[in-house]
């Protein structure tokens, strides 16, 4: 049997001048409830002996302001349209170290979606980051740009590929060719959209590149291999990513 104390003011107003503790012998505020509070009707703020407190307008939220002695109700504005895909996470990374390739030609086969990263790929270490997915409906966008340069074997062309790896699996890739004399460089872009990744914390993302047919050239990606035409500031790589999800 629960012990019930019913306090009524039907015929008697009750006046406490001391602090009241419920389920505590040592209250620290005027009313100290060591337990839960059930509110069946309005929670009013800012009342006095003569003024009834405010229950807030529908949609306002309970708020603390350091300039007031009481809590108040705050209006929150949410712009119309913020209901579709929303930007949950954004990041941008740069890499000035870059990677370079020389020696034998690499594979010139196409690449498979979802292939695991191998030693043929060199990671642009500064582009590494993590992101999280919390909703089964999602889009992840990648925007990668770097500069590639060839040197060492005259006018012979050099081909390469750069890809985006998520949890070390290839999720987007483009190939490109540098044509021209020694020191020729070109801007490489890769924009890609992934849809509906499985919700998970801390996906890793990185950009990595590989050589294809380099024709005995030295190939630099995000790296100046012929400093006559390029330096590390000009050749740097940038990877920007965003995670879009509905609320």
């Amino acid at each position, binding site marked *: 049997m629960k012990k019930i104390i019913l306090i009524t003011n039907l015929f008697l107003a009750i006046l406490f001048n001391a602090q009241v503790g419920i389920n505590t012998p040592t209250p620290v505020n005027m009313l100290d409830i060591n337990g839960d509070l059930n509110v069946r009707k309005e929670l009013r703020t800012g009342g006095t002996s003569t003024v009834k407190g405010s229950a807030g307008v529908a949609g306002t939220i309970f708020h603390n302001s350091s300039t007031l002695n009481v809590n108040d109700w705050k209006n929150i504005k*949410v712009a119309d349209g913020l209901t579709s895909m929303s930007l949950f996470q954004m990041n941008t990374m740069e890499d000035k170290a870059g990677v370079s390739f020389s020696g034998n030609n690499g594979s010139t086969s196409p690449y498979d979606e979802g292939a695991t990263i191998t030693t043929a790929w060199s990671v642009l270490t500064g582009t590494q980051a993590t992101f999280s997915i919390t909703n089964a409906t999602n889009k992840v966008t990648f925007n990668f740009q770097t500069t590639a340069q060839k040197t060492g074997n005259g006018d012979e062309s050099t081909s390469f590929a750069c890809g985006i790896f998520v949890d070390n699996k290839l999720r987007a890739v483009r190939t490109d060719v540098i044509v021209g004399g020694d020191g020729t460089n070109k801007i490489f872009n890769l924009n890609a959209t992934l849809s509906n990744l499985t919700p998970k914390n801390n996906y890793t993302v990185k950009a990595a590149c590989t050589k294809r047919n380099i024709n005995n050239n030295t190939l630099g990606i995000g790296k100046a291999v012929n400093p006559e035409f390029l330096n590390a500031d000009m050749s740097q790589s940038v990877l920007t990513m965003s995670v879009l999800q509905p609320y």
Partner: protein
Amino acid sequence: MKNIISILFITIGLSLSAQIGIKTESPKAMLDVNGDTNLRGKLAALDVTNNSLSEGSDGQILVSQGENYPPTWKTLRIPEYEPNKFYLIFNNSFSDETGISFTSSEESTITSRSATFTKNRAYSNFTKFKKIAGLSQAVNIFSTVSKAYFQFETVVHANFPAAGTTDTSIDYACGIFVDDKLINMRQGNLRASSASNTFVIHNQIGLVENLAKGNHTVSVACSRLDSYNVADGTVLGIGRAVASNIDSFIAQSSLKVDVYEVPQVFNTITN
């Protein structure tokens, strides 16, 4: 009147250790108030992370922590909208691994590019253009003051043999359309080189201001415009591999859509 206990404590603290009901005989919480509650001072909530009572810092709001936990003061990190400033309202991004391709006979018959490729021109005038199916998508506009930004990337590929002494190349163009009206057009040229089956990465950024409020459809359509010293049977692929040196995964297209708006309609918190 049954079981009424009036309590009058003037000078000493009151401590009650059972559930208390105010205007109810069956309290369902440590304190159950069957009516409104008036706060003349501030509400303090237990911060379970350091076991101390907190009234919150300036500007904080009370946020539920779910069953069994006291609510906690949190800072609401959303922008205070200022007049006449643009905010990111709609964004989405789409990809397509199917793409489109054009044989020699599917080349465009448009005679004057400069007269045809004009802003707001209807898609029906773009004869022999093909849409990239996966990039036809809905865009929603919520304000009469808006800027919609489109970023499109694809790979353009042709099954050229290795180039001879005469230049071999194909002109192509891609347009971004909203509601089948041209927003932005870029043309390019794919040229054969010493290696066969050449390809280029095609980048394009377009924007349109102040679309009508409501739903719109964005789409990307491309065409093969002209061929120079090109053998019959040469196929141009856009967002599609037409030779085995690359594949559809490498050649895929991406379209990112951002809409910046000056918000005109505001909602309160609804859920």
